[in-house]
């Protein structure tokens, strides 16, 4: 067992996480076409820490790999490389399965689709009680029913709702049930995969407020996955920006929004629609996300980057002070400001 990092009170440590999918054509077709196997590097070396009580957000567009990271952190997807450690216990160590069992109780997940994350044939009471029963946290049925009632009240529903089926609830209410289920095992670390993307704006506000309240009350730690920067602004303490499987920038929230450094981060922030109608100047966004099966060489962002040079095309930048960009390292990123004003 690797001893926990001494200096920070990191609850979750992710080091050099990788995931490669085999997307080759079926064997017979490959033999006939004489085609090589094809691999998709969904996640290509991600490292970050999450401190207890914080919300770490992973932001990115489609193909960035953020959902894949979430599933690996939580243990739903086997890891192709690298390591995930929660409170010092490695999630992939087979030997330590007793410790991992204990760990399972403390990690939970909230999913994106409120219509698919609850079993439509189960009553809400059974859905929420499932973790309690699985981990044998309470013995008698009465205790379990009471606890379910407590949890429902905690997320803003009524204990009487426990006899209902999921289809009798709205999307936002279902998400509340999903949160109650996540809390049922007394989890401390919750991975949230786009929890409000499928909800209406006013419902989203309710759920985000609820999640923040619960975090304050129960001292929860969140890994928050989202593509919506405004939502992330609201929830996160630190933010990691992902592009094609790599982390391009990691920074505390306030800093990322006030002084973004990586060109992609800046482009992303500029692309967010301006609800304040401030008429701010924007860099026009170029191009689209390339296919992850055949990513560009060197820095994967180089085809769309206004600051690209030869080194960017050849060499993948390493993260320095949270930013993985040659231009930032070489001090060339001032050029982006000039371009904005032009």
């Amino acid at each position, binding site marked *: 067992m690797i001893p926990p990092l001494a200096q920070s009170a990191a609850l979750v440590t992710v080091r050099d996480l990788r995931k490669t999918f085999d997307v080759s054509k079926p064997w017979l077709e490959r033999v006939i076409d004489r085609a090589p196997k094809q691999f998709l590097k969904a996640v290509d070396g991600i490292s970050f820490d999450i401190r207890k009580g914080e919300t770490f957000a992973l932001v990115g*567009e*489609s193909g960035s790999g953020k959902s894949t990271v979430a599933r690996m952190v939580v243990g739903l997807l086997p890891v192709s490389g690298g390591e995930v450690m929660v409170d010092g216990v490695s999630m992939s160590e087979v030997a330590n399965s007793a410790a991992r069992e204990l760990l399972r109780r403390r990690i939970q997940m909230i999913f994106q689709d409120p219509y698919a994350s609850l079993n439509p044939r189960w009553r809400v009471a059974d859905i929420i009680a499932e973790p309690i029963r699985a981990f044998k946290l309470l013995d008698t049925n009465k205790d379990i029913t009471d606890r379910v009632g407590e949890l429902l009240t905690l997320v803003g529903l009524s204990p009487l709702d426990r006899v209902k089926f999921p289809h009798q609830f*709205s999307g*936002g209410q279902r998400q509340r049930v999903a949160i109650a289920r996540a809390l049922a095992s007394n989890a401390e670390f919750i991975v949230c995969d786009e929890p409000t993307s499928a909800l*209406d*704006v*006013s*419902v*989203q*506000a*309710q759920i*985000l*407020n609820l999640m*923040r309240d619960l975090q304050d009350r129960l001292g929860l730690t969140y890994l928050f996955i989202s*593509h*919506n*920067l*405004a*939502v992330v*602004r*609201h929830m996160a303490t630190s933010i990691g920006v992902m592009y094609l499987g790599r982390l391009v920038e990691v920074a505390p*929230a*306030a800093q990322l*929004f006030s002084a973004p450094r990586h060109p992609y981060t800046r*482009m*992303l*922030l*500029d*692309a*967010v*629609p*301006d*609800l*304040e*109608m401030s008429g701010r100047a*924007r860099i*026009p*966004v170029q191009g*689209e*996300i390339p296919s992850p099966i055949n990513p560009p060489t060197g820095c994967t962002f180089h085809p769309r980057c206004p600051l690209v040079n030869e080194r960017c095309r050849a060499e993948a930048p390493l993260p320095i002070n949270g930013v993985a960009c040659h231009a930032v390292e070489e001090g060339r990123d001032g050029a982006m400001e000039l371009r904005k004003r032009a």
Partner: protein
Amino acid sequence: MTQPVLSVRNLEVEFVTRRGLLRAIDKVSFDIAPGEVLGVVGESGAGKSLTGTAIIGLIDPPGRIAGGEVWLKGRRIDNLPKEELRKVRGKRIGMIFQDPLTSLNPLFRISEQLIETIRTHSDMNEAQARARAVGLLTEVGIPAPEKRIDSYPHEFSGGMRQRVVIALALAAEPELIIADEPTTALDVSVQAQIITLIKKLCRERGTAVMLVTHDMGVIAETADRVAVMYAGRIVEIGPVRDVVKHAKHPYAKGLMGAIPTLATAETRLLQIPGSMPRLNAIPAGCAFNPRCAEAFERCRTDRPEYIPVENSQVACWLYDKRQTKREVAA
């Protein structure tokens, strides 16, 4: 005062179900001027997509238009026979849907689809139509259009496909474009490009645009005016700046306050209690009254009329100057 391109008056859409009549759109009225972008915004179930579908006459049974009128450049289109309506739909109204994968026929090349549309609504020959198609693709920003025009839809990325859909919608030079969530399925960076494109092209051609979406940010960037829908009715309609920054109707105010922006970090998001009523349980009077913190007696009995407030129209009794202070305070 130029004649509006689209004029909708008291539109009503109903669904006949085993359990009775459901009114999905209840007396909706608005105009769109040439070159103007009207945003129709609302949450799910508000009826915004249905409004667009009703205007082009594509409502399937058990739904049907139960009342009201739709005028396109001075001619009524909601009561046209099917064949006439079909011609109007192709030539004078263009559609942009949410999912570019299903808007384009995967079995045909882009060239075939574009040329077919162009030739149906004009008398160009094959070569002329092709040249025009390439011109359209250039306008929407597809690189190397002479080569890419012969590709199939699946050979394009999501954003590129949506550009092709826009080209297709503009191919017949329509007077009106109805765009239903055109950017929802796209990444944020691509979304910005598509929004800019729609705005630019429509302004150049003087095409009116009805932009239906739940994304307020897109509205703020694209629209000139915006109509906020709730439970099948328009509760507020006005210039986009006014509605977004200084909404009047309590629902619109709540909606704007609930949206997280890059600026608000530490504040709590505004929350509207409850949820939109189902179609079979719309309250009497103002549909929003059970959730409204400022509701009073009249709100529960009388459906609000549109009251002009500054440059907007608001359906809310709070703004009825004839209300005595005593009634409001109750």
